[in-house]
C-alpha cells in the first residue's frame, strides 16, 4: 500500500522536521571534507530538499519520483549535483548527499512505529524513494561532467590546429594528436581559409605529432591536399616517421602524386624552391662575422 506509506511519511516529516534536519546535516558534515562547502550552505540545501520531499509526499501521495509532484525536488537535486560536479566533488560524495538521509529517517521511523510489519513496509518505501533520488543525483552529476568534457574537447580541437606562416607564400600546419573526421574537417577548413587570406602558394602538412596513420587518416590527408590543389596551392606532407611510412606501405595506401618529405626542414626547403627562393650560407662555417664577438659577450 504505497499511498498509505507516502501519507504516513509526509506526516512523519512534518512532525520531526527540525530533528531530521539536524541529524541529516550532522551526517553530511562527517562525509564531506572540510572547506569544500560551508556548513550553512549545506544546512540550507538540506532544508530545501527536505521541504521539497515533504511537499511532494503530501501533494502527490506517490513515491515514484518521475511524477509531476516531484518536479521541485528534481530541480533542486539537479542544481545541487551540477554545482557539485563543477566544484570537483567526487561522485560518491554527491550521491551521499541524498543517501545520508537514510539513517536519520530510519531512526525516526523506528521511534514512531511499534508494529514490525508497518516498520518494514515504511523502511522499504523510504529506501526505494531515497535510492531513486540518489540515482537521479548521480545521473545529473555525470551529465554535467560529460558536458564539461565535451566542451574541453571542442576547445582542444580549436587549439590544436594552428596554421602558421613560415614565409611569404608558405604556410605550415603542424598537426598533433589523432586525426578523426571532425578534426580533419576543421583542419581542412582553417587551412583553406588561411590560403585564401595569405595568398600562399605552398602549404606544408606536418604530421610529426600524429601517432598513427590508418587508411581513413590517409584518405583525410589526401582530401585536404586535393582541396588545396583545386584552389591553386600545392601541398607537401612532411614529418612521416619510419613506422608510419611502413604502415602506409603495408596498408597499400596510394598517396598518388602528393609530395612527401621526412622532415619539416626538407619540406620547407622544397617549398622555398617552389616559390623561387633558396637558403644559403652567408659566410663559411666557423668564420667570425664582423662585430659578432662583442655582441656575443653581451
Amino acid at each position, binding site marked *: 500500500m504505497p499511498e498509505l506509506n507516502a501519507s504516513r511519511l509526509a506526516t512523519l516529516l512534518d512532525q520531526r522536521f527540525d530533528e531530521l534536519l539536524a541529524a541529516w546535516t550532522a551526517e553530511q558534515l562527517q562525509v564531506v571534507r572540510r572547506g569544500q562547502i560551508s556548513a550553512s550552505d549545506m544546512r540550507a540545501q538540506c532544508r530545501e530538499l527536505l521541504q521539497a520531499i515533504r511537499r511532494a509526499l503530501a501533494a502527490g501521495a506517490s513515491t515514484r519520483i518521475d511524477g509531476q509532484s516531484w518536479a521541485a525536488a528534481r530541480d533542486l537535486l539537479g542544481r545541487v549535483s551540477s554545482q557539485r560536479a563543477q566544484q570537483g566533488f567526487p561522485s560518491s560524495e554527491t550521491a551521499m548527499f541524498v543517501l545520508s538521509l537514510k539513517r536519520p529517517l530510519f531512526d525516526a521511523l523506528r521511534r514512531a512505529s511499534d508494529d514490525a510489519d508497518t516498520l518494514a513496509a515504511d523502511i522499504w518505501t523510504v529506501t526505494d524513494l531515497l535510492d531513486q533520488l540518489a540515482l537521479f543525483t548521480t545521473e545529473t552529476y555525470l551529465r554535467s561532467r560529460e558536458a564539461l568534457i565535451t566542451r574541453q574537447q571542442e576547445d582542444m580541437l580549436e587549439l590544436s590546429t594552428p596554421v602558421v606562416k613560415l614565409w611569404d607564400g608558405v604556410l605550415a600546419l603542424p598537426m598533433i594528436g589523432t586525426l578523426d573526421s571532425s578534426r580533419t574537417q576543421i583542419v581542412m577548413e582553417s587551412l*583553406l581559409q588561411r590560403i585564401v587570406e595569405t595568398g600562399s*602558394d605552398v602549404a606544408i602538412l606536418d604530421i610529426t605529432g600524429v601517432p598513427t596513420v590508418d587508411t581513413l587518416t590517409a584518405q583525410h590527408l589526401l582530401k585536404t591536399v586535393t582541396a*588545396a590543389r583545386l584552389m591553386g596551392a600545392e601541398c607537401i606532407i612532411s614529418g612521416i616517421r619510419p613506422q608510419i611510412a611502413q604502415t602506409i606501405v603495408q596498408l597499400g595506401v596510394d598517396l598518388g602524386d602528393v609530395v612527401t618529405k621526412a622532415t619539416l626542414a626538407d619540406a620547407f626547403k622544397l617549398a622555398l624552391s617552389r616559390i623561387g627562393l633558396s637558403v644559403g650560407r652567408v659566410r663559411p662555417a666557423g668564420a667570425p662575422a664582423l662585430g659578432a664577438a662583442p655582441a656575443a659577450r653581451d
Partner: protein
Amino acid sequence: MDSIPILRMGPVLLVSIQVDMHDRLALTLQEDLSDAITANGSKGVLIDISALGVVDSFMGRMLANIAGIARVLDAATVVVGMQPAVAITLVELGLSLEGVRTALNIEKGMALLQAAVAERDAVLHVMDDADGTD
C-alpha cells in the same frame, strides 16, 4: 537569355563567372567558349570562379569538360580563385578536376598561362629550327 561574357586578351580568353551558375548557363558557356577558342585561335583559357559560392556535381563536371574541350582545341585551362567551401564540396563529391590547372588569383593564373604558352612556343621554335637545318 543571359550569357557569361568571354573576354579576349591576346592569346588568352578570360571568363569571369559573377552570377549564380545554373545548368543552362553552364551549357551555353561551354558552347560559346568552344566557338571562341576556335575563332580566335586562343592558346589559353582563364576561368575566374572567385564569386562562385555554391557548386554542384554538374558544375564540377562542366569545369572538367571545358578543360577537356580546351585541351582538344590546343589551349591550356587555368581555374582561379576557387573558394574553400567550393573546393571542399568538389573533393567530397569525388571531383578532383584532374588535368585542370589551378591558381589562387587572376594574377598568378595569368602568369601560369603565359608560362605554359611560352613553353609551347619554345617547343615550336625548336621544331622550326630543326626544320630550317634540313
